[in-house]
């Protein structure tokens, strides 16, 4: 073969029109994929219910009524969602840096304990002082506890999942040690508790709306965190670090400082949740604080893809499921763990749905060659 052929030169393609709808489609993808995952989880759960001989439609109807059907159930949902807003932030903020912190449960109980301890010497001053002291002590404790996991990660390169999980066990053990030991009110017989902060220092429900006082605090925290992550240099640097730590290092970003700060902010939120629970619900620190809010927060943060604004609807959703639990138990005779089965299915399908991103051409930018 010694002939030489030269095909005509291909002319340059015409300049492409910018794909103006792409950002919108990208947002749509971020909303639709978790929704599809939720639908998938509900589908799997229906199979589970059918196997138990129950009707999935009855189940959905009861969940709706138990969560949002009456003013009472709405209040119940909000009451459960409020701490979830803050414990989800405990996962979502470090999550922006690519860290998976699962120790929110310890941050909430230790935050509640620290808030109670800070309140006790002040109970005869003004409630405002007590509340301020509780908020500061609770947040500081949570920040310290989650900050420990961050410090282990940043300084010693310890896997933060393991560190926060183990520290969570240690935190719960410490909590029990204090509540059942030196801080125990001898009058609390069958449920060991600390001394109370006094009825006059309890937080009332929000005026006019008559909902749990943690709600405005949680919503405010979500909005502040969203601004922090998407509108400030700190948030930008955090997202760069989470997206590609090598690029962050090359840009000279203070990775250690960012990790510590993000963990402290997240832990502070969870600690604040503990303080609010004590001030609004129990009046003292006891095992009621250890209600699994820290763990459900992990689920919410993943459902929200670590976006603080998306945490809000997801917390309401999961709070509603929790609120409907009692009704389901009574009406359908389902065991208490049923809701946990559903939560587990949601978590697994959310994690699995991560592989769906980028799979559908419709969401992709047009005109890349």
């Amino acid at each position, binding site marked *: 073969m*010694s002939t030489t052929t030269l095909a005509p030169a291909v002319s340059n393609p015409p300049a492409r029109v*910018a794909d103006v709808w*792409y950002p919108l489609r990208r947002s749509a993808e971020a909303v639709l994929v978790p929704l599809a995952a939720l639908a998938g989880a509900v589908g799997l759960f229906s199979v589970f219910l059918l196997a138990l001989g129950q009707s999935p439609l009855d189940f959905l109807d009861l969940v709706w009524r138990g969560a949002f059907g009456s003013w009472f159930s709405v209040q119940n949902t909000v009451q459960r969602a409020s701490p979830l807003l803050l414990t989800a932030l405990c996962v979502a903020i470090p999550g922006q840096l690519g860290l998976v912190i699962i120790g929110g449960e310890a941050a909430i109980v230790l935050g509640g304990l620290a808030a109670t301890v800070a309140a006790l010497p002040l109970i005869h001053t003004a409630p405002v002082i007590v509340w301020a002291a509780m908020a500061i002590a609770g947040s500081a404790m949570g920040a310290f506890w989650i900050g420990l996991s961050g410090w282990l990660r940043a300084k010693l390169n310890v896997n933060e999942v393991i560190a926060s999980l183990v520290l969570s066990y240690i935190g719960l053990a410490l909590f029990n040690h204090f509540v059942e030991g030196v801080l125990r009110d001898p009058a609390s017989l069958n449920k060991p508790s600390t001394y109370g902060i006094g009825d006059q220092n309890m937080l009332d429900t929000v005026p006019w709306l008559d909902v749990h006082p943690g709600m405005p605090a949680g919503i405010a925290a979500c909005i502040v965190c969203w601004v922090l992550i998407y509108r400030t240099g700190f948030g930008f640097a955090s997202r760069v670090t989470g997206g*590609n730590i*090598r690029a962050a290092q090359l*840009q*000279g970003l203070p990775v250690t400082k960012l990790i510590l700060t993000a963990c402290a902010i997240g832990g502070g939120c969870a600690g604040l949740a503990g303080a609010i629970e004590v001030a609004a619900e129990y009046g003292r620190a006891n095992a009621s604080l250890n209600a699994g809010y820290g763990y459900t927060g992990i689920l919410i943060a993943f459902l929200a893809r670590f976006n603080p604004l998306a945490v809000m609807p997801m917390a309401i959703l999961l709070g509603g499921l929790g609120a409907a639990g009692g009704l389901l138990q009574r009406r359908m005779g389902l065991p208490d763990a049923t809701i946990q089965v559903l939560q587990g299915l949601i978590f697994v399908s959310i994690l699995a749905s991560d592989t769906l991103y980028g799979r559908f051409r419709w969401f992709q930018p047009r005109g890349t060659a």
Partner: protein
Amino acid sequence: MTTAIGVEAVGIGKHFGSFHALSDVSLKVRPGSVHGLLGENGAGKSTLVKCLLGYYRTDEGQFIVDGREASIERPADADALGLGMVYQHFTLVPSMTVAENLVMSRQNVPNIVNWRSEIAGLKRFMETMPFKVPLEVQVGSLAAGERQKTEIVKQLYLQRRFLVLDEPTSVLTPPEATEMLGLVRDLAHSGALTIVIITHKLKEVAAFVDEVTVLRRGRMAGSGSVRDLGPADLTAMMIGEPHAPKNPERQGIPSAEARLVVSGLRTAPDAGRKGLSIGSIEVHAREIVGIAGVSGNGQKDLVEVLGGQRPAESGSVTVDGAPYRASRTESLAHDVRVLPEEPLRNGCVPSMTVVDNLNLRGFDVGPGKSHRSWLDRAGMAARARNMIAAYGIRTPSPSAPIGVLSGGNVQRCVLARELDGDVRLLIVANPCFGLDVKAVAETRTRIMAARNAGTAVLLISEDLDEILELADRIVVMHEGQVVHEMPAKGADPQEIGRHMLGQH
């Protein structure tokens, strides 16, 4: 020994959605020849090869292997026909011996391997090979050239009769590349197998290839015998323009002022490799110092130390006389910029938008280098628009994640970002790795322009041609040490190659 087979592709078409990766591409490879497959990045070379090897299914056209129409639907079909490929990046397991790697690669490895008979069989096989590789040595301890030979031996061991080599010399020194390509050509001409070489390097094409097929934008741009085609014809076919890109022009001479001084730098050994032990490297203003070396001789560690990704054990790095630890404050104060190798992996956040990635340097910098706490989103978008226009970055939208851009456009983004504004010191690592001819010329021109404007440039590259073209001074690294230093003008590639291999 096996006998070579010919392969013909007729009217191959392959599209991904609306994007036509290949349309009506035909290729004829004679048995026992060395065929060059040329083209820019994204021209469709790898798509064509992947179709042939069964990783993709063609939408149109057919392959004729050894004179018979062949339906290749999965890699196993290609395997059965004796078609094989040597990838750009090595696929041998470094912690296993050559013999273990060879046996492991076979389809039918018995559950219990009788090593004595396997080794005996391998020795008999090796007798028939035109070049030898040691059987009982760990692959990790072989030099790059030896490893490449082992990859080829592995393909022959697997009874391949048609072999695709993807950029086979990109990790080799010039003497190694010459030796390896010579061996491959002799193998082909002996009739043992047919070779297709995917390459950018026109010098290698001229010296070792019999015939070429050139692709451009998924279409045939031409084909023919190398004897009839000059480098100018080939370049014209590859990029569709009659003129080859010009070498960037060097203006002015290096100043006496040392911008970057590295002295007594040591790092800890890492994963069995020696750490750095650098006596001294100086880079002056308006000077490009090229660091040459075989991959894995400490160049990467040096870039990581200078970029703040790896701590130094001892020694000092100073910029403009002040100690430099690559913090954001220091790099901003001294205008130090880094063009890392593999820019998407080292210099970008793939999930963030093009706008965000173009602002990684500047998002927290206000007027007059002041610190900014709130993002100036309008300012970021405007700066990004300017960079996109100035560097001709092709992106579907400024708010597309940078991960969807092609390699050349990612590199343009990083160039735009790192060369924006005043640059006093630029650290560059393998800037043209994996880029097409046009993007390579553009990148080199930008680097040379920065130098001409007075920037001190430290260029770390595994491509000796690049160093010879750009550098004012050449430093050779071997096993973490600076082993040789010379002016670039009149430097002899063969001599540099010897120093790169540790023969001083």
